[in-house]
Structures are given as structure tokens and as C-alpha cells.
């Protein structure tokens, strides 16, 4: 019995960590810019593919294994901070005043384009970069063995969460962000360079998606179509937590991860269903999500 509980807990927390990392960039971008970045999924994929290349090269060049994680991190940052600003400045910059559905369609179109660009660059065959995952070894709990990578992911999620909270509450930039989150126009009137905030936020959001992708890459086969489940799941998590809310996305990730682990332990088929089930349940009682910051456009 205890074994069962521990099993569900460990798997649950691992999945929660992944959900949080995957979704946090999306909620950040929404909170500040009030747009749903559908291309979030492809930035995740980009991070994963970039990681595949960087780590692939790293291994071939026989660089020190303990720096794998730095490599993963670097891959994510590169993908986020090169493509991110480019997309924002070229495509999105002039669209913010438009209807939100139009912007949604634009990021959706961007998603379509990026999916194929990734295919053109990296091809359609899967990549396996299992080294960073295997290198860490395993730990045991009772009779079950788990990869130490789980601990890494958990630590990463906590770090990202704390770092973002710190930036938002304690730094000057963070305070400007919070101001823009609450009211874009008044912030601009107060002299805040909203354009700059947007570029930086978008890039950070994409980089966060990239981090999630890069650090997940060692645990899966990196192949086309990686991004689509991510956007759908991330959206569910973000909406459940409350669009734009950082504590919200954390709490939603925890709940969903644990519930999912519990459910698939007994009925494996229910995966995606469970996540959306939780979302529907939360929305039925709290239409704006757990911690609402923005309206859920419900009348």
C-alpha cells in the first residue's frame, strides 16, 4: 500500500514538475502581453531539437559529461533568445491592437510554419540523446528504482519558479512587468517602455518553453509532432491555474500531475482525458481558474 502511494507520488511529482516547466512560459506571456502564444509548442520543440544537436555534438566531441546540463540550458537559451525576439519584432509587434482572435490565428500560423521549419532543418528521423539522463544514475525507493533525472527536473522546476517569483517581486524590471500586467495603457503613460517589456517577456517565455523541451529531450525520442501535445496540455494547465498567474500554474501543475499519476496507475488509457477532466471540474466551480488574474471572457 505504502509502495503504491509512493509510486503515485513520485510519478506524480515528476509529471507535475514537467507540466509546470512546460506551461510557465505560456502564462507569463499571457499575463504580460495578453496573448495566447500557440507557437509555444514549437518553441518547446525547438528547445528539444537544439538540445539534441548540442548534446549530440557534446558527446561526439567527448566533452565532460557533468556539463551536459549546462549544454541543455545553453541550447534552450539560444533557441529562445534568437527566434523569440525575431518573431516578436517582425510578426507580432504591429498586431497587439488587433482582436485577440486574430493574434491567436497569427501565433497559430506561426506554429504551423515552425513545425515545418524544424522538419526542414532536423529532418523527420528521431533523435536520441539519452546521455544526460543515463549519466545521473538511479535511486531506489523500496523495490522501485527511479532515475535521478527525476530529481533534476524537480529541482529545475523549483528553481525556475523561485527565480521568476524573485524577479517579479524584488527587481525593478519585475515591478515594471507587474505594472504592465495590470494595465498596459497606464504603464505606458507612466513612461514604461512597453515595447521593450514585450520583447523581453516574449523571449523569456519562449526560452522557458525551450528549457522545458531541452531538459525533456534526454527522456524521449525527439521527433516531429513534439510540440502539439505540449500546447494543448500547457493551455489546460494555464487556464486551470488562472491565465497569467504564476502561483496558479504551479498549483494546477501539482494537482494535475498527482491526479494523472493516480488515474493512470489504475486505468492507463485515461491520460489526456484526466488533465482536461480536472480542468473542466475546476472551471465549473471557478470559471476564471484557481487564481484569476485575467477575465476568462465568460459572460
Amino acid at each position: 500500500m505504502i509502495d503504491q502511494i509512493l509510486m503515485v507520488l513520485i510519478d506524480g511529482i515528476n509529471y507535475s514538475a514537467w507540466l509546470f516547466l512546460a506551461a510557465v512560459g505560456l502564462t507569463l506571456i499571457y499575463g504580460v502581453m495578453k496573448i495566447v502564444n500557440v507557437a509555444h509548442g514549437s518553441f518547446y520543440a525547438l528547445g528539444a531539437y537544439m538540445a539534441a544537436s548540442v548534446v549530440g555534438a557534446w558527446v561526439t566531441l567527448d566533452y565532460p559529461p557533468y556539463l551536459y546540463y549546462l549544454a541543455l540550458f545553453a541550447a534552450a537559451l539560444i533557441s529562445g533568445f534568437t527566434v523569440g525576439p525575431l518573431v516578436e519584432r517582425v510578426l507580432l509587434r504591429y498586431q497587439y491592437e488587433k482582436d485577440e482572435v486574430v493574434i491567436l490565428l497569427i501565433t497559430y500560423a506561426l506554429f504551423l510554419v515552425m513545425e515545418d521549419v524544424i522538419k526542414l532543418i532536423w529532418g523527420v528521423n528521431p533523435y536520441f540523446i539519452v546521455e544526460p539522463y543515463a549519466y545521473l544514475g538511479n535511486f531506489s525507493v523500496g523495490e522501485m528504482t527511479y532515475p535521478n533525472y527525476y530529481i533534476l527536473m524537480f529541482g529545475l522546476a523549483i528553481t525556475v519558479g523561485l527565480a521568476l517569483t524573485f524577479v517579479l517581486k524584488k527587481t525593478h524590471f519585475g515591478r515594471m512587468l507587474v505594472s504592465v500586467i495590470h494595465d498596459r495603457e497606464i504603464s505606458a503613460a507612466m513612461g514604461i517602455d512597453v515595447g521593450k517589456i514585450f520583447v523581453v517577456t516574449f523571449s523569456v517565455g519562449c526560452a522557458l518553453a525551450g528549457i522545458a523541451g531541452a531538459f525533456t529531450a534526454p527522456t524521449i525520442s525527439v521527433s516531429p509532432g513534439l510540440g502539439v501535445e505540449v500546447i494543448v496540455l500547457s493551455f489546460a494547465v494555464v487556464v486551470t491555474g488562472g491565465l497569467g498567474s504564476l502561483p496558479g500554474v504551479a498549483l494546477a501543475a501539482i494537482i494535475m500531475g498527482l491526479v494523472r499519476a493516480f488515474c493512470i496507475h489504475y486505468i492507463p488509457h485515461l491520460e489526456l482525458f484526466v488533465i482536461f477532466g480536472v480542468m473542466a471540474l475546476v472551471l465549473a466551480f471557478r470559471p476564471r481558474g484557481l487564481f484569476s488574474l485575467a477575465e476568462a471572457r465568460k459572460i
Partner: protein
Amino acid sequence: MNFDKSIVRLAIVFIGILLLSGFIPQWAMFMLTIACANGMAVLGLMLFLRAGLVSFGQALFFCTGAYAAGLLALKFDITEMTVLIIVSGIASGFMAYILGFLLAKYRGIFFGLLSLAFSMILYGLLVKTEALGSTDGFNVPAVTIFGWLPDLSVVRVAVLGMAFLIILLSVSFVNMLLKSPRGLLLTAIRDNEIRAEYMGASAQKTIHLFYVISGVLAGLGGAIAAVAVGHIDPTMSFWTTSGEMIFIAILGGTGSVIAPFIGALVFGIIHTIAFSYSPNTWQMVIGLSLIFVILLLPNGLWSLREKFGKRKS
């Protein structure tokens, strides 16, 4: 704009195509039939665009209709196309009715992405269901039309003719609907939902209603596709299928009830050309075209007709 004239013209075009069918190559007829199927689904989407809503998961109902038709034919040995069509409509309509209780409460991005989510849930369920062939899907046996089993040489024409019939009926119905008080209300809700509520209307009820109609239309389209292709699989509910439908909707615009079919035809042609050159960049083509159309032609291809064509009616 006088829709009734458009419908009459459409009927004439349809009859013309059927009469000339001897000269039309098989692949072209197939493409036309698929365009009909897609057009039906997009007709449903267009209803939502009128209300200011975009569904990113229209493929859900398309797929439901297709599977309903396919299952009925394969597992229950019912191969009469009229029956298949009707059952598909009921199945997808019912699905829309249930989901509508949740979805009709939301607008904007929520509506869009929630519908995407449901379509992906169906995809996931179908993929995991062995009995339905999981990712491979299954084949649809040959159908009879009003009791007659068409010979292989004419089966494409027959199915196309049936598709035409369904389209004409649907388009007439939608046309009547859009001109009715309920239809006017749909556009009013897009403009000022609060005002409509303060006049006693129920926005939620109206949207729920149109959600069901949209679902039925897409389901009928799915059934046509199932029969025309002879095969169904879970990708019919995949997000890319919904994406193509959105693309067609934006391409065609909301100007007329026949716009979705024109958009679907153009799409079919682009698809055939682009896919034969480079299958791996198909999504990119759609994405770039979508961006192009959104930024430069906000009213879709239909607006070109108004700019360059003669103002009919």
C-alpha cells in the same frame, strides 16, 4: 447580397459538373468530393465566425461523423448512404449538444482552445482503441445510394452527386437560418453581447444552438469524406485537420454561404500542387498563407470578388 441567387447558381454549376462528368478525370472528381466534405465542415465554422468565435477543433465533429458512418457500414452492415448520412448528422449533433453546455459559456481564445482540446481528446481516445483500428483506422465498404449499388466506373460521380445534394440542402437551410431572427441575433451577439442580453436574449442558448448546427454540418462532411475516401482514421480529428479547416474558412471569408465551398476548392487545388512538390512543407505553406491572408486580405477571397468582380444583386 442576394444569397438565393448564389444558391441557384451553385445548383446550376453542380448540374453542369454532373453532366460533364464523363470528361472529368477521376482524380479531379475525387478532389471535388473532398472539397465538398471540407466545405461542409467549414460552413459550420463560418457560422461561428459570424458570431465572432473561432473553433480550433472543428475536426472533432468531422471525425465523429466519419466514424459513425464507417462503423455503421462496417460493423452493422448498413451501407445505404442516405442512412449513413443521417446517422452521422445525429451522432455529431449529439456530441455537439453535450459539449455545447460547457463551450457555449466561453468566448474568444477560451472557446478556440477548448475546442482544440476536445478534438485532441477524441484523437487520443481513438488512437488507443484497438477495436477501432487505433492509428490505422479501418476501411469503409462500398455504399448504395437510394438502394442502387454504383458500378466502379460511376461510383465517384454518384457519391459526388450525393454530396452536391447534401450541400444544396444544407446551404439552403443555413441561408434561411441566417436571415431569421435567430441568425440576426448571432451577429448581434458578436457586436454587443451585453446589449442582446439586456433585451432578453440568451447568448448562451443561441451559441449552443449554432454549435449543434455547426457540429451536424461538419459531421455530414465527415460522412461524405468517409465514403469518398473509403477509409477513416484518427487523423481526421487531429489538430492539423482543424487547422486546414480554419485556413479554408479564412480563405473563403464569411461573405456568403457558398464561400466555404469555393475556399475548399481553392484549398484542394493548392494542396494537390504543394503536396506533390514538397510534402514536408505543407504546414508551412498553410501557415504562411494564413499570415498573408490575415494581414492583407481580412475578408478572405470573397473580398477580392467585391473589389474586382461585378456587384451581383
